[in-house]
């Protein structure tokens, strides 16, 4: 029984959240979390880029803002990559399972 539940989990992750209707225990949660993580990576990068631009063109002289924004972008990107790696690992492990 548990195998079927895991497979349906995977199907949920691979389909867009709006279409997933499978009633798994908190199944939509992970996909949503990954989507949010990616969105925040994107916005962190954009913010950091903007801060750098403003510093070097003379609009702002807040060095600390730039450094903190860079670190935030760094951390959120690394976190997203690790999440992706973990998902891949879990997928590969499941695929290895003898049914």
């Amino acid at each position, binding site marked *: 029984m548990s195998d079927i539940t895991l497979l349906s989990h995977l199907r949920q992750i691979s389909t867009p959240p709006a279409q997933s209707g499978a009633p798994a225990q908190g199944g939509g949660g992970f996909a949503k979390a990954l989507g949010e993580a990616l969105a925040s990576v*994107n*916005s962190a990068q954009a913010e950091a*880029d903007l801060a750098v*631009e403003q*510093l*070097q063109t003379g609009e702002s002289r807040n*060095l600390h803002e730039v450094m903190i924004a*860079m670190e935030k972008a760094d951390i959120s990107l690394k976190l997203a*990559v690790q999440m992706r790696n973990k998902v891949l690992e879990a997928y590969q492990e499941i695929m290895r399972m003898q049914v």
Partner: protein
Amino acid sequence: MPKLELFDQSIRLLEKTLDMRQRNQEIISSNIANAETPGYTPSRLEFEEQLRQALKPLPGAPAATHPAHFPIGSGDLSGVRGTVIREPDTLGFGDRNGVDLEREMIAMAENQLLYETATQVISKKLGLLKYVAQNGQ
């Protein structure tokens, strides 16, 4: 299929900034070296405003519709060269040397700090790209 751009405008901006600030350092060094040379006219390198103009989006270009989208600029940074501006002495007496040593020292400190910030930021960005390319190891 849009072209895959590995090194985006932000990195190009940083490269350009490093170029400009190195030239600026030469000019400021020249001013400081000639702080007591009779008749010497100090120079300044103007480039920050030019950078700002180059980064502005062209009129009619697509605007970012969502705050999470990267801003789209006209992006022609390669045209920014910086202008050397001479500032002749205005006091009108003495040896007509126009160098203000304190101002040059402050300009040098600021320039150096911004240069080092740019090297750190570009280092960090390239490091992130390496991290992703190496699959998170």
